[in-house]
């Protein structure tokens, strides 16, 4: 017997944060404009000691105004999607669940687009208007996950293949709606199809939205984490969990809302990046086991690492042009999805 202890949890998180740090440094270095590792280290130290005035302006622009914010965005988007994926998998008792596969990301995208469309007509203060997109995305995500859940029921029980079908069909339905919006909304400052369908981290959201993303991530992840040991029991089924003292209804409510919020926030700033929520929790389960008390935090780090790596590849492999980051995650994620599906059918 080797039950989880706090020190083991912290040790694993420390390792992963070290990996994340290395990945971030490499991501800062790589890009269309080459930067030496030495110069980078020098500049990072200068920033740490608040001597920003000594940075060369060109450096400052590339490293600290373009690459670093983009990496930070990737970190929070990746962590959000991955934690959302791990929670959906436990709650729906389906190892193939993921915000993208279930159509939740597309639902969030539709919500965000609708918010963008109605925003100019509402004459809101700019700060409030900036909130409208994340709120729309959250509502879109929450509505989709509710719809998919009920469509996935068969005789009152969640049926995993019905659920997946319901999710995949909802996703393609919602993507058609996105197409419709995109073609009727030509012009204006709406983002492109690639953004909403595949996701990209190229454009920085307004400062306030970034803050909401970070705050929302910590809030939702903390809410989900309070149910971590309940989720462990839910893996064995809702009835079993109930007999072991889990308030299944409360857990379901908390996790659905928080996971929808995570998905909505991520989609409103980066579009629908797929497969992160599928791939990362599975890798973390292989590495650290399926106890959610360790899975959720390691999945957050893993998601951050995965998206930063994918985005770095997306902007370097076809440099000076760029791929959407969602293309990179799909290249890695779709085969894994198929592998897991085949193994499950076997």
């Amino acid at each position, binding site marked *: 017997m080797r*039950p989880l202890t706090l020190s083991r949890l912290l040790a694993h998180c420390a390792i992963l944060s070290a990996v994340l740090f290395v990945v971030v440094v490499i991501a800062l270095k790589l890009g269309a404009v080459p930067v030496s590792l030495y110069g980078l280290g020098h500049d990072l130290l200068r920033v740490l000691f608040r001597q920003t005035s000594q940075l060369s302006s060109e450096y400052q622009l590339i490293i600290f105004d373009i690459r670093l914010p983009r990496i930070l965005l990737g970190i929070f988007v990746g962590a959000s999607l991955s934690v959302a994926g791990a929670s959906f998998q436990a709650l729906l008792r389906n190892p193939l669940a993921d915000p993208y596969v279930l159509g939740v990301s597309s639902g969030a995208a539709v919500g965000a687009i609708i918010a963008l469309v109605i925003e100019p007509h509402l004459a809101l203060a700019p700060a409030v208007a900036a909130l409208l997109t994340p709120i729309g995305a959250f509502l879109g995500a929450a509505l989709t996950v509710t719809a998919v859940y009920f469509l996935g029921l068969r005789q009152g029980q969640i049926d995993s293949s019905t659920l997946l079908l319901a999710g995949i069909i909802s996703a393609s339905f919602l993507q058609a709606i996105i197409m419709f919006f995109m073609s009727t909304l030509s012009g204006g400052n709406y983002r492109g199809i690639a953004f909403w369908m595949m996701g990209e981290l190229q454009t920085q959201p307004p400062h306030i939205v970034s803050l909401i993303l970070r705050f929302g991530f910590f809030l939702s992840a903390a809410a989900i984490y309070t149910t971590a040991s*309940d989720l462990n029991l839910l893996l*064995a089924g809702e009835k079993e969990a109930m*007999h*072991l*003292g889990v308030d299944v209804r409360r857990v379901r409510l908390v996790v659905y809302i928080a996971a929808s919020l995570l998905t909505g926030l991520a989609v409103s700033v980066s579009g629908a990046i797929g497969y992160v929520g599928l791939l990362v929790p599975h890798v973390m389960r292989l590495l650290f086991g399926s106890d959610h008390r360790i899975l959720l935090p390691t999945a957050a780090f893993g998601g951050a690492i995965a998206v930063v790596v994918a985005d770095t590849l997306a902007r370097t492999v076809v440099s000076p042009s760029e791929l959407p980051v969602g293309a990179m995650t799909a290249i890695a994620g779709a085969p894994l999805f198929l592998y897991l599906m085949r193994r499950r059918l076997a």
Partner: protein
Amino acid sequence: MSSFARSPSSAAARPIGDAGDFNSDIRLSVEQVSYAYSANPTQAPLFTLEATSFQARPGEIVAIVGPNACGKSTLLKLIAGSLEPLSGRVLLNGFVTHALPHRTRGQRIAMVQQESPLLFPSRAWEFVLQGRHPYGRTLRFETEEDIVIARNALAQVGAEHLSDRFMDQISGGEKQRVILARALAQQPLLLLLDEPTLHLDIGAQVDLLETLRRLASANRYTVVVVTHELNLAGQYADQVALFQKGKCLRVGPPAAVFRRELLEQVFQTPLTVELGSSGRPRVNMPSAK
């Protein structure tokens, strides 16, 4: 199952709250409990359980027997408090089981259900530690005490050697023992089992019932077990409740319930009943012609 002898009376394995209960004789009291299930409120009920009553003391085993779809499992859920009775009530030490908060219910009532597949593989010890969940605060990590209790639980069912094995890599009988160990780790007052002998060979069945018998006396559990095995019920139960089509026909000691005419009528097949030297009934099929 020699391992059982090692720690039957260890303090950690005793159900809590037991000390004060020795005086009050009745632990479980099922009082005129009925239930009806219908697909929607306007339709006639598809299934009803007629008012049922019985009582059980600490250390007693009650077996619920009857043909398929006679309401056995429904009654078990009503006792567990996961279903609310249409009328009547189920009292555990004087508390209505359905009204207990989730956590308290998890500390007092353990349910061994027909196994459901696990989504991700877990080891036997992880599974048994789940039985400590009702005692933990939201994020608490398992304490030394939890680990001792889980170890004891595994020892009590003779499954220490399975501790590090994965749940999907052990036999049905072994799995059933680990599931029982998880229920013991809950340190319940009331142990409910829904067809625990299903899919087990005869050796594993007898083994399980022997274990239950010993645990019931050693730990003063009240045990309610739903089963199809009339002879196991006759051999090990203190009381048997015989059900047919949602109706409790008779409750009492096995010898009083297992009467030939009654069983033949309920199961619609010729049967013979003989009393063994211990006064326990044996139900047999007459040999085919």
